[in-house]
């Protein structure tokens, strides 16, 4: 998931005795592992929360096209160009499935788009970081898609049917992306000294932002507790971050690259790595709009939308004319 800091409405989990009979039945179904389908009854807060979470995820896929799209025209071989094009196309496809999943909850894609463009809805802050050298395309696949998978695999079991199904489809493609990203890193890390330098530089810049993708610690958060009770969040942010670090450290070692954290070491007792927290003040600054690319990313999407208005209007107008002509032909035939 690329949804950080999605706050649940209300004050944490509603105690069972305060639930209406309908709410109790709903919670029982979730506890029994049943999927909730769009036409079925659901608490309004559940619906609103899902709209925000799925919408934010969809927006992230769309904005996520930009940092990678930045390198398509400069990809170093025809094959790398094709792979990158296909990847960015997949991300647009993910956006499309997710907007469709959100639409089943009664919000249109256009409404969600307007909310993104006006800044009312967020997208994952990771895409507010720039892609500065070719190894960044490797690092994004390896680390960013890797972190996304870590988040999304558990969400295949989420309680809302359309979201769960979208996650199953998306996860398959994301793991493909991660492999391709790692493959670029291998080539770079084992290439010329300049290529190794690019690879290390990419890891240095993407390591902490990738850790931030899981969001700040939420082990005491009442909001997260409600999301977990509803199974629209499955693990805590810290659990996922730990898993990600443990998975990534040996991969970096295999590449011969150094993770930019002098505190990083294996902790036998906990059976995982100890590592430094990212700088959370940077995280909040980026979230507020002060990341390196926030303005550029949003502006690129706003321009695409504004510049495309005549195109969308043209298609709508044509469809109306075609309908009218068909209707007239029917009348004439009668």
């Amino acid at each position, binding site marked *: 998931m690329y949804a950080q800091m999605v706050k649940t409405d209300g004050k944490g989990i509603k105690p069972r005795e305060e639930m209406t009979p309908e709410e109790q039945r709903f919670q029982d179904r979730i506890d029994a592992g049943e999927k909730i389908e769009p036409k079925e009854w659901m608490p309004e807060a559940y619906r609103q929360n899902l709209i925000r979470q799925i919408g934010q995820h969809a927006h992230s896929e769309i904005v996520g096209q930009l940092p990678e799209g930045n390198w398509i*025209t400069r*990809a170093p071989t025809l094959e790398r160009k094709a792979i990158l*094009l296909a990847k960015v196309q997949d991300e647009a496809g993910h956006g499309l499935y997710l907007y469709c999943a959100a639409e089943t909850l009664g919000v249109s894609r256009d409404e969600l788009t307007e909310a993104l463009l006006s800044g009312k809805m967020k997208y994952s802050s990771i895409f507010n970081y720039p892609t500065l050298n070719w190894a960044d395309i490797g690092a994004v696949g390896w680390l960013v898609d890797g972190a996304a998978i870590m988040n999304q695999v558990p969400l295949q079991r989420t309680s809302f049917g359309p979201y769960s199904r979208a996650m199953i489809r998306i996860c398959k493609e994301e793991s493909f992306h991660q492999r391709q990203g790692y493959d670029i890193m291998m080539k770079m890390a084992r290439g010329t000294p300049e290529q190794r330098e690019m690879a290390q530089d990419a890891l240095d810049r993407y390591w902490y932002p990738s850790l931030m993708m899981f969001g700040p610690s939420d082990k005491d958060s009442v909001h997260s507790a409600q999301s977990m009770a509803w199974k629209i969040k499955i693990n805590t942010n810290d659990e996922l971050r730990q898993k990600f670090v443990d998975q990534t450290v040996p991969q970096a070692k295999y590449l011969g690259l150094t993770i930019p954290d002098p505190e990083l070491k294996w902790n036998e007792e906990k059976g995982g790595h100890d590592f430094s927290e990212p700088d959370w003040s940077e995280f909040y600054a980026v979230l507020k709009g002060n990341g390196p690319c926030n303005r550029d990313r949003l502006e690129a999407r706003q321009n695409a939308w504004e510049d*495309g208005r005549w195109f969308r209007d043209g298609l709508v107008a044509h469809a109306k*004319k075609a309908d009218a002509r068909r209707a007239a032909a029917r009348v004439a035939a009668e």
Partner: protein
Amino acid sequence: MPSLPDVMTPDAEALAKAAGNGARAPLAAGTLAHDLFTGLTRLGDNALILGHRVSEWCGHAPVLEEDIALANVALDLIGQTQLWLGLAGEVEGRGRSADNLAFLRDAWHFSNILLVERPNRDFGHTLMRQFLFDAWHQPMLKALEDSNDARIAEIAAKAGKEVAYHLERSADLVIRLGDGTEESHARMQDALERLWPWTGEAFVADDIDLRLAEAGLMPAPESLRPVWDATLTEVLSEATLTTPDSTFAHTGGKQGRHTEDMGHILSSMQWLQRAYPGATW
């Protein structure tokens, strides 16, 4: 003006040779191998440069479906580039791969038609360029399926399926936007007029084209004109657009004389390969 020093010393000659290291001696012009190599790079370069232009839209299209569709078209074109330039390298027989040809030739060795290097401008312009190209590309590939060279016929058959779909899509959008709002109509008409002088080149034969046609390897360029004309008449009239009546055509791309845009395309496309020679990616 100071007199120029005499640089034609043996040393300078050796230096010039060393500077050209890696650029192998070209095939002799006028041979069938050279003709075929050139014909194949014309096909490959059209696909590569148009694929490059289309891919510039990635993430910036007016709707999500168009982002996906454009990426599809670009992907098809890059795939076709690999096939055509791969075969060109094989025919040349000097060990150049499709990547070598794409990333290590300079502009004057590129032989795409000028139309495909025209800038994207707005989305309507991009679509019109695509349609004008597809309407030529589709019958071209159809004719290439009958090439005497089985390798050419095979690539053409594969690419032809993709391009039939490109044409269907670009023609459909040209119709819908031409016959859409006043603004979309005006934009499409403007695009048609701006691009018009760049369309004729595809049908102008040079000696290489004539010999390739003679040998039954590739169709004569003007033989594709009737199908192209028919497609345009049908689509543009349904789109309520007016076909410009000028017959003027810019030429030169097929012979390696390009527009100013070409250098900029190559300077981004080839940058990594040029900056880090010999690296693998």
